[in-house]
Structure formats: C-alpha cells, structure tokens
C-alpha cells in the first residue's frame, strides 16, 4: 500500500468505498486495489493531470464576488465514487415514483386542487406560498408533466440508506459536470475502466432531447428546441451551452426571442423569425416574462406566458413548478405518494419539523443545537444553520428569525453524511458528500445512472455547494456480477 492511504480513517461515518473494518466494498474493490497499489507520488501526478485537463477543456463555473465575476476551474476529485447497480436500481425506482407524485401534485394544485380539498395538505401552506403562481392556474401541460427536469439531492446516512434531502424542481444545475467528470476520469485513470462494467452517463443529452421533444405542441414536425439562458455571466452558463450543443438545440438569450400577435414565440435569425416549440428555461420563472412576473426583468421574453397558456409553446420546467420545491411541502411528499399513486414511498425522506406548527416549533427552539435549520425556499445552501456547528449567537439569531416568520423555516435532524476517500494535500482523507441524480419526465420517466457527487472539501464540513467551496467526484454505477 502506498503511503497516501496509511492513515485513512472515516471514523463512525459510513464510507462509500470502505467498510468499517477498512476493506473495500464490493463495488469499489477494483478502484481500491488499483489506487492503493499506485507507486508513491503517482496519485498526485494523476491529480495534476486532471487539473490540467479541466483547464484545457475549459470546464468552469462563475463565482460572484465583490470584485466582479470570476470564471473558476471546476473543482474535481479524481477518486471515483462507486455504487452497486443493484442498489441503484432501488434508488432509481424510488426517484421515479417520487417524481410522478410531485408532478401529479403540481398539476392538481393549479387545476382541481383535490389534495387540498381532501385536507391531505393544508390549503393555506400551498396557496399562500410565494412559490405558488396564480398566473399558472388552469394550464394543463402535456402528460400532466410540469417539473420535467428534477435534480434531487440525496445523502447517505450512518445507517447506509439514501435519503432525499430536497427536490430541486426549478432550474436544477450540475448535469454537465456529471458528464465532464466522467470524461476527465477516462483521461486520467483509463486503467480503472479495464476490469469494470460501469454504466455510461453520456446518454443524458439524448434523453433530455427526447423528453423535451415529447412536449412539443407541433408533434407532426421536428421540434424547434431552445435553451434559454440568462447569459454568460450566469454561474451555470457553461452548462447551458454544453446542453444546447449536445442536443443540437439553439442556445438563446431573452433578447433573441419575441412573442408575436399570434401568441407564438419566435427567434430572431439571419433568415428572419423562426417559430420555437419548446423552451428549456434556465432562468428563474420570476424573470421569464415581464408582462406577468417581474416587470424589471431584462432577461425574459415579454409575452412568453401568453404563448405557453395558449398551448403554442412548451416550457420546461413549466412556470409554477417551484410550488413543490418548498421545504415545507417536502414534508408532505410521502403523503402525496400515497394519495396520488396509492403506493408506499420507496425513498426515505428526512424527518422534517415545520416551524409553522406550534408543536414542531417548540421542539425546534428547544433543540437548536441538534438540528439543521433551513429557510423554506432558498437554494445553494444559503441562509441555513447547522446547529451542532453554530455559535450560541447564531442560534439566538435563528431562534428570533423562526419566531418572526415560522412559515419560512423548517428543521431537520443533523444527518451523518457519508464520506469517501478524497485527495487532500498529497494524502487521502475522508470527506463528506452528497449525490444529485437527475430525473426526466415527459412522456416517460427516466433517471440518470448515478448523478453528480458533490464533496465538501473542508475537513468535517457538510457544505457541498460549488459556490461555497465544494468539489465533485465521478460517480460510478457498477454491475458487480463477478
């Protein structure tokens, strides 16, 4: 064994590659045998090669700072994470179930509102949510699908089980990095692929294309699909361009589009206007149409909502989908599954305390040092508090926030996120990670084999967001019939 591994110890956490006795898990056997037997110093060489590849491939994301926007290289750890195909099968079935129920829910609350009338979910928490958009009432997108692209965040707890932490139904990002991570691993650790049967990930753009095409209002012709981006200063611009290119779709900005008197949306092209059938929007819904939502938006397209409501244009994800992407609603997803699908939930959810309920609030305020407090509808890890790591002052601050605006906060027990070996300063150390698979729903439902694994690069940290110093790993779904 080379010396980088000598002192590796994941403590009491579940480690993705090693068992508690330090032996490789079945799915990780090949990876571990190879890495542990690399001559001293070679792991570092491979790491440097990966860094160079990332720089040359121009894989970057944008970080906003006071001094301007910085285009930063994508942070990547070369040691892959492996999950057995058998386990993944179960997770993927559970995710499909969840996505179907969430879409039933969104379609219901903008139309008949059966679930509210039946009292399964209190009507006011849905209808008074800032994520509920009355402008979307009465619209019935094809197949009842609203959240066509969902990026769910999963974590593995101490018990070894995957839990759904949140469902990102608005504009989830990260999928291009999932694809690029595989490319980099193939370049820097090609030997690893020899004795493994790893499910390929590069099918994603095709599946996304199929999903989007199935939404087109004009099924009798090849659909004109456009990816709507806020522009190059968006942190995920790289991904927008990547997806447009790999689907052969147009990458458009708001100013490239206009809505004509016929309630159809057109692109401005060198040959004159061309009608668009499907828009994959990567702009927050509040900005997509100044006629309907924020008037000051320069990113959107005036009239695009008219076109969508008239059925002349499909928008993915449909405006209003965010209603199910609310941490209060999250607590009710198991109920939704039972209500709409008459099935028992297959995926675990995290026990969630709703600060709006008096009993829950009392418990939360008493146990701030044990819980994670999250605002109901922020994303990117902003505005949250990890109780056990927070100072007494921060806890007091959050207690005040909760009492002032209980609807806005939820609390969950601190999970013991699993770890995986990660290269840190010439050594290998355990770091916490999560997993974001992507679920596509149009005519059919499809789940990525694996997803984007994000790693908290700081020792002991649980914050995996790239905007806050997180890294990522290639994620392998491994067929282990040997």
């Amino acid at each position, binding site marked *: 064994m080379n010396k980088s591994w000598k002192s590796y110890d994941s403590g009491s956490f579940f480690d993705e590659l090693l068992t508690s006795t330090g032996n490789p898990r079945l799915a990780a056997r090949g990876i571990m045998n190879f890495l542990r037997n690399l001559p001293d110093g070679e792991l570092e060489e491979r790491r440097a090669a990966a860094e160079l590849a990332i*720089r*040359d*491939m*121009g894989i970057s994301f944008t970080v906003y700072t006071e001094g301007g926007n910085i285009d930063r290289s994508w942070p990547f750890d070369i040691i892959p994470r492996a999950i057995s195909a058998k386990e993944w099968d179960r997770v993927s079935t559970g995710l499909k179930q969840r996505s179907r129920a969430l879409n039933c829910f969104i379609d219901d609350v903008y139309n008949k509102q059966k679930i509210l009338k039946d009292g399964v979910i209190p009507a006011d928490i849905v209808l008074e949510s800032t994520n509920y958009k009355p402008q979307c009432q009465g619209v019935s997108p094809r197949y009842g699908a609203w959240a066509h692209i969902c990026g769910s965040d999963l974590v593995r707890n101490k018990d070894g089980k995957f839990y759904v932490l949140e469902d990102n139904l608005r504009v989830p990002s990260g999928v291009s990095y999932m694809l690029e991570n595989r490319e980099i691993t193939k370049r820097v650790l090609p030997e690893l692929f020899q004795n493994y049967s790893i499910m390929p990930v590069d099918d994603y753009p095709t599946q996304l294309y199929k999903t989007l095409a199935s939404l087109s209002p004009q099924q009798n*012709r090849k659909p*004109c699909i456009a990816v709507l981006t806020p522009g*190059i200063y968006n942190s995920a611009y790289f991904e927008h*361009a*990547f997806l*447009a*290119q790999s689907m052969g*779709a*147009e*990458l*458009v*900005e708001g*100013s*490239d589009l*206009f809505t*004509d008197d*016929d309630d*159809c949306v*057109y*692109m*401005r*092209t*060198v*040959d*004159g*206007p*061309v*009608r668009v059938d499907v828009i994959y929007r990567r702009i927050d819904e509040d900005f997509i149409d100044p006629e309907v939502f924020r008037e000051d938006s320069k990113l959107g397209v005036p009239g695009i909502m008219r076109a969508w409501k008239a059925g002349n244009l499909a928008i993915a994800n449909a405006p209003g989908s965010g209603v199910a992407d609310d941490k209060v609603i999250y607590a009710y997803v198991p109920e939704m599954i039972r209500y709409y699908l008459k099935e028992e939930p297959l995926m675990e959810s995290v026990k969630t305390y709703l600060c709006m309920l008096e009993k829950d609030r009392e418990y939360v305020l008493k146990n701030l040092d044990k819980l994670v407090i999250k605002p109901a509808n922020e994303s990117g890890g902003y505005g949250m508090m990890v109780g056990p790591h927070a100072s007494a002052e921060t806890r007091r601050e959050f207690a005040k926030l909760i009492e002032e605006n209980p609807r806005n906060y939820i609390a969950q027990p601190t999970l013991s996120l699993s770890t995986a070996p990660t290269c840190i300063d010439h050594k290998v150390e355990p770091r916490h990670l999560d997993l974001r698979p992507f679920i596509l729903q149009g005519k059919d439902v499809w789940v990525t084999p694996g997803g984007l694994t994000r790693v908290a690069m700081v020792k002991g940290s649980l914050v995996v967001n790239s905007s806050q110093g997180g890294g990522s790993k290639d994620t392998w779904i491994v067929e282990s019939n040997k």
Partner: protein
Amino acid sequence: MTMLSRVADRLYWMSRYLERAENTARFTSAYTHLILDLPRGTELGGWQVLVDILDAEPVFKKHYRVFNEQNVLRFLIADLNNFSSINYAIKAARENVRTTRDVLPEETWEHVNELHIMCKDMAEKSVGRRHRYEFLEQIISRCQMINGLLMTTLCRDHPHRFIKLGHLMERADMTTRIVDVGAGAILERENNNPAEDTLLWSSMLQSLSAISAYRQKIGPLVEPDPAVNFIFKEQTLPRTVAFCLKGILEELQPLKNNEAAIGIAESALRKLTRFDVQKKSYEELHQFIDQFQIYLCDLDNAITNTWFLPIPTEPQEA
C-alpha cells in the same frame, strides 16, 4: 438550418479577431526580421510603422511616450488597451467562442481556450527579442490550426458563412493597411538607397505571406509596382484583396436580404479592378486605399445592419 442573429454576430467577430491576431503576429514577425537585416541608419519610420498599420497612434500615445522597440512590441503583443494587440484579439476571440460553442465543432473551444491560456501566460514575456519569434510562430500556427479545424469540420451553412465573412473582411482590411503603411515607409524613406528596395518589398510580401507565391507567379525580382499589383489583384492567392472580395461575394450570395451588401462589395471589386498602379505616386496609392477602406467600412455596416440587428419581418416555419 436556423442561425440566431446574435450568434452570427459573435462568429463573425470571433473570426475577425483570430485573423487579426494572426496578421498582427505575421507583420510583427516579418518586421522584426527585416530590422535585423537592415544596415544601421536606414530609418524606415522606425517602430512606429507597426502602430500606424493598426491606425492606433492615439491609443498608443495615451499609454506610452516613445516609439521604441520595447514600447511598440508591448503595445502590439501584450497590451490589453490596444484592441488590435495579439493578447486582446485572442481574448476577444475566446469570449466569442465561449458564447457560441454550441454551434462550433466540439474541439474548437478547447483549442481556442488553450491558445488563450498560452497567450495570457506568455505575452508579457515575449515582448523582448529572445522569446518573441517563438511566441509569434506559436500564435500563427495555432490560429491556423483552429482555422483548419473549422474549415475541415464545419458544415457549409450559416456558421461557416459568417466565419468566412469575418475572416475575409479582416484580411482585406489588414492587407490594404499593410500595403499602405509599408509602401509609404519604403517610398518615403530618407537616405533612399535603391539597393535595399528588393529587400524591403520582399519583406512586405513576407509579412503578407505572399513572397513565395510572388516568386512563382511573377519572378524572383521583387519590384514596387508588380508587388502592389500582385497583392491587390492576383486571383489565385488567398491573401490578396481581390481574392477576399470574391470570397465575400460568394458567401453573401445565398443569404437573404443581401442586396445592400452585395452592391457595396461589387463596387469595391470594380474599383480595385480599375485601379492601375503603374505611374501612380505614393500619394495616389494612399488615396486609393483610403477610399477602399471606406468601402470595407460600409460593407461591415451593411452586414451588421442586415443580419446582426434584424427587425422582425414576416414569421416563417423552421
């Protein structure tokens, strides 16, 4: 095949900037070589000539006082205040590719990005004579590689068309500037020693990558009138002005609403064909190039107004 006006605009400029970087590298390299060959005292307008080609004296004066080798070369190679410097042009080209990579062959972005990293890291260090040649060679060959990649992998439709337009427009522009400033410097130099003529005119053709073609077509002896005539009118060499204009016309042909642009390009070509360099003074040559530059400017405006800033007309199905 649809093409967004915004994308057409960016491809056009990507291509112009790449061509600009390559041209600046070529004439800088050729001039540096020439200076090594010239006997001391042959002044030839000094290093300022290089700034004049880019018509950039006002910008230069803002940041430097003296037209010495160090200042001028820094201005041409590394200075980001100069929109025609190699460093700026590569950066701008990269920014344009970054926002159009979805319509370009996959490797384009990677190569342009590598070129940008190399340029950013090396530009400042390559101002001095020691590394300059190697740097300029790298710029030229990498630009050519990217061009080659585009020419061998792009479908012959709109993206290719606007890339080619940008490329030919920039080249026609640069070529006429180099002839203008080069001929001026040679013909108007002090201590006019006719023995140096061949060396100087050869160097000008060298900076346009036209010297070997000239030798094959015209002959080994490089003389002023045939040289200018060759670089203006030779039909077969991709670096001549006539070749660029013909190429531009060819690319404009399949585009919609092309009347204005074609009109200007045809007038420019007619003017070039009628121009007879024989018996012309430098003053007359200079005037001709000035007028010709106005045509290029009008043509650029016509392309911009017609295809990059379109006003919605009748909708049509894709």
